[in-house]
Every structure is written in C-alpha cells, then in structure tokens.
C-alpha cells in the first residue's frame, strides 16, 4: 500500500471524522509496531459493538496489533460476532457469507499473487468457531490440503453467540446451551490436531490472557503462510454473555480453565517451518 493514498486532501480536514484523522496522523502502517506499543499509535480497530468483556474484542485488537505487514494485509471474515466489529477495522476486509471464508481467501490470495508478483500481500482469515469448525470445516480443511498460502485464525468463544447462544462443535462436552437442551453430547473438536494432520505448517492455540505469546504466534503463522504453507491459530476467547460470567472475569476465566486442564496453549511446527522461522528470527536478532 502506498501510504499517500489515504492522506486527506487539503481543505477537507474539517469534514473528515476524527478517527480517520487519527489514523492518518499516527497509523501503524509500515512501522513494525506491535502489542508492546499499543496505546502509542492509532489501533486498526476503531471502537467496536461487541459485548463488554468479550474475549473476541480483546483478541481482535491483539491480532491486529500483531500483523507483520498491516499495510498489505487483507482479512477474510465470516458471519458471527467478529463480523460485527470488522466494518470498524481499517484494513480491507471481506465478509461474504457464513462458512465460505477459506474458499474466498484461496481465490483472493491467488489473484493477489498474480497481480502483485513482487509484493507480499498477506491474506488472513479471522472467523469464529462455528464458521471454522462447523459450517466451514470442509472449506477450511480443503484449503489446508491444497497448501494455500493463507493463515486461518479461529476466535473460539465456544458457541454460536451472535445468533443467541447455541451449541457449536467447539463447546465443551456437557454444556447446556440452546440446541443442546440436555447438554452437548460430544467433546470439543480437536482443531489444532486436525490442522496439523491436514497440512498446516504452523499450528498454535493461545488465549488473549497471554498477549505477547499471542503476538508471537500470529506473526509466526502469517510469516509461515507466506513461504512455507498454510497456518492455523486458535484463540480461546470465552463469551461472557452466553456463558454468563461477569465482563471483568474474562481473563480470570481463561486462567481457571487452563488450571483445570480444559485449555492449554500449543504450538506444532513442521521442520521446514521451524527452519524458515529460525532463519527469520535469527536475522531479526542480528539487526
């Protein structure tokens, strides 16, 4: 992206919205900023309409702050709570219909490769657990089988939250939710393992309770997808509204689940991705 394209034409400053002016004045594009610098620049998410204490909202802010190349990143989303926040994200982002996100991203990435052969254009899918593990699972897995150069990030709030709190494949076994009136009958889907076995070169599971680790994993996933192969990051982002806990308890809830052994962070890296990332990370240390 050429940054000059979003400068404000002189004499139009007074009619441009404040958030746009802030973006022009202190944008994060091309500056190599990250989670540690949050608060010192204009975030790519301008407010959001998600519930108080929403794990997705915090995760989204952290993901956007972690993008290695925000000025040339296009996001593909899907239907769900996160889709409500995307109109307020200052990146090109696509939401077509429910579940087709990895197919859309496959076509998009290939077209961008053709049009910009000498430039890196990162395509990152950010979708909920229903979109990723249920309705879109075939297209998610097929994009991995085909070794598409895209990153898939699942925001796992363990339910269909936007439609009123129904069971998803990622809800814990036994949970009573809408459409699971007697409790969910089968365990949480093992998506990281499915991703590992389906051709992802880099797989991670993490939560927003560990922002620096989350940042590292998102960056590794996107860098791996550029050169090595598809990557997957699963972000545990509990839903206070449907699991009925207080907004301020979100991070404590994640830590409690971790302590009980229901959630743990993971990282699976193929040898090829490991060598590639080690090269990049080594190079960064030398700078």
């Amino acid at each position: 992206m050429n940054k000059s394209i979003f400068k404000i034409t002189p004499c139009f400053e007074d009619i441009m919205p404040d958030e746009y002016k802030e973006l022009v004045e202190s944008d994060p594009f091309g500056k190599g900023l990250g989670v540690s610098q949050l608060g010192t620049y204009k975030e790519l998410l301008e407010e959001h309409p998600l519930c108080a204490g929403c794990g997705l909202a915090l995760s989204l802010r952290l993901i956007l702050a972690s993008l290695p190349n925000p000025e040339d990143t296009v996001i593909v989303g899907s239907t769900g709570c996160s889709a409500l926040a995307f109109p307020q994200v200052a990146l090109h982002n696509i939401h077509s219909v429910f579940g087709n996100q990895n197919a859309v991203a496959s076509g998009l990435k290939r077209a961008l490769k053709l049009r910009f052969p000498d430039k890196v254009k990162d395509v990152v899918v950010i979708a909920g657990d229903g979109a990723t593990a249920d309705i879109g699972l075939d297209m998610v897995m097929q994009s991995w089988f085909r070794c598409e150069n895209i990153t898939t990030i699942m925001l796992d709030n363990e339910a269909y939250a936007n439609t009123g709190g129904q069971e998803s494949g990622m809800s814990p076994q036994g949970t009573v939710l809408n459409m699971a009136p007697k409790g969910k009958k089968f365990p949480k889907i093992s998506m990281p393992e499915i991703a590992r076995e389906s051709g992802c070169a880099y797989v991670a599971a993490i939560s927003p309770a560990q922002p620096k680790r989350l940042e590292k994993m998102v960056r590794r996933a996107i860098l791996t997808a550029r050169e090595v192969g598809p990557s997957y990051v699963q972000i545990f982002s509990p839903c206070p509204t449907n699991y009925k806990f207080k907004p301020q308890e979100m991070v404590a809830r994640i830590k409690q689940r971790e302590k009980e052994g229901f959630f743990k962070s993971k990282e699976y890296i193929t040898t090829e991705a490991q060598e590639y990332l080690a090269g990049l990370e080594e190079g960064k240390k030398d700078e």
Partner: protein
Amino acid sequence: MDRVQRPVEASQLLFESERAPAFITGSEAVMEAIKRANVDMAIAYPITPQSESMHLIGDLYAKGYLKDYYRAENEFAVMAAIHGASLGGGRVFTATSGPGTLRAMEMFPVWAGSRQPIVCAFMCRGVSLPPSIQPENIEMGMLLDTGMLMLHAENVQDFFDMLLKAYLIAEKPDVHLPVGVFVDGFFVTHTRETVMLPPDDLKLLPYDPENSPVPVFDMETPPMRITRDPLLNKSNFISYAANASWHQEVLAAAERARKHLAQYLGGLLEVENPNAKIFIAASGTAVSQGREALKDLLDAGLDVGLIKIKSIRPFPVNELQEATKNAELIVVPEFNAGGWLAKEIKATLNENNRVVAGPRVFGGMTIPKELIISEIHNALNRQNQRL
C-alpha cells in the same frame, strides 16, 4: 502456449477480424472463447455435462493461456473462491450444471451484490429428485432474481459469442455485474456444429480492476467500510435505506446493460416473420425446435413467426410487447417442468390469455416439432370454440 497472443480492442476481435470455420462441440466452444478472453484464473469442479469444458480450460492453463486454475472441493466453494479471486481484481471463469448450480446458490446474489464481473457458464440439466443428468433448464427459473445477467444460447455459435461478449458487458463500469451464459446441456455441449471463430492469436485487452465502481480488495485504496456489514449491522432506518439503495443500484446496473447487449448481441431478442399473427417464443435450444416447427407451419399456410429471446436478464420487455402487439397467439415451448419463460412472458404482455405455456418437455427428451405444431393447433381450436 501454442502461440503468442496479441491483446486487441473488442471490436477488432469480435467484429472486424476474419473468422474461419471450425467443426466443434459446445464444450470446445467454451475453450475457444476463454482462450481469447484473456482470463486470469479459472476454478473447476466436475459435474455432467459441464466437466469436459472445464477439462479443456485446464488444458489452456497447462499451455499457459491462464495464469491459475484448480479443482476445488464443491460448487459452493468454487463460486466462493471465484468471488474471492474477483474481489482481488482477477478476470475469472467457471462453469457448472443443475445440482452444482443449486449447491452454489447462496453465492450468486453475493456476486451481484458485490458488483463483480464474473462470467459463469451454466450447462443446464435436470435436478434431483427424480434424478436426471439430461438437458433441462429449470435452474434458470431459480436464478431469475439473483441479480446476475442471464444470456441463453441457442447453439454452439451463440455459446462461443455470448461467452466472449459476456466479459465485455460484465466489465462495463456502469454495469459491473456477473453474467451467466446458459445452454441446454448435451444438446449444445456435446453436439458438433460448424462455428465461425476469429483468429486465436488475438485476445481481449486485460481486465482493469481500477475501472470498477467498487474498490478492489488489495489494500491499494484507503481502508473504508465496503463489505456487507454496514448494510446489515444496525437496526435503524439509515441501515435499511442503505441496503435498499444498494439493492436498487444492482437492479439499475442490470437495466444499464441493455444498451451494451444491444451493441454486442444485436438486441435482446430476434424475430422471424415479424408480421405474423401466431408466434413461437422461446429461448435456448427450444428456439431450434421452434424453427423446425415454423417451417412445417409455413408450408401448411399458417401465419406464424418465431421470437428468439437471447437475454433473460434483463428481460426484453419493450421488445416483446412491440413484437407481439398484433399477435393473437404466442406459444412458449420450454425444456423444463415449471414454465418459467412462459410466466415471464405472461407477466410482460397485455392480454396475456394469448400466451400458451407449453409444450413443456423435461426428463431428457427433446421437444419434437410435432408437439409444438399440435400445441398451436389445439390453441387455435380453443380460440375458435370461444368465438
């Protein structure tokens, strides 16, 4: 690549260059059209009777005419990936048939709503149940209000020309909508015909995504609220009005396509014997069967004409009213059980008791000319009894 191609103005490729005959099938005509269309990328998924054409597109890719091509996982995913590739600024192509069309259904209004100049060939066939892989075009009736432009080819020559012209019409900045080019499966896809082809060392100029009325998703324009959520999110009047006006603009864009269709197709319909009192009105291969019936009816001394409807969306409302203003009987033969074309015609014309919705043939049979002839005789007898 067999040969180096030169991008030229559409008028040169379509109208000025000398054409040579080729004895080819409809599937081969698809390949010949896409070869000259300067397409960036195609995505395929097998289904009868479409498959052969997409094999041939794969061969084009292997020879270097296309830059990317792959076999996707199902038709919904194909249409979604085509949507993604087009959002990224590529000129794209795909094709499907019957059940594949229905599997992908959710994506077609998305293409139109996203104002994407996607060209898709539909090799129409029966849909289950009862199952049939045979020619039938009920799927067209299901796509009438998806927002895409719909052209119905009668034969292999039409199929070739309409596919190539579809890109030109789809990519006009005042249109910028998907175009479906439809044929009745097997009758056109698997039948060999002599087709006049322009030279294959010429191709269309490349697609310029900068001419699009909506931004390309490549982070080369300022970030802004451009996908569907601003039109969906809020429960208030401004959201509803934004949604409605966007929708109206899609419909208006289809209306604006009329002049381009007139330019490239020579009109949305064609009429033989314009002064006749009786008309056979049809689209697709039913036109060919109607033409056979027409010969016999004229030999028998009846005052009959033929209306070939080429554009289904937009529908030739004024042209049809004009063509039938003195007609007393309009018989509409169709290859489907629903009779969608007859319904369209009835909704278009005054005094629509002149319209006979039939004969309708489905399940794989052809329409014998005798069936059309007897439909006309039966209708005339009914009219005489009423008198």
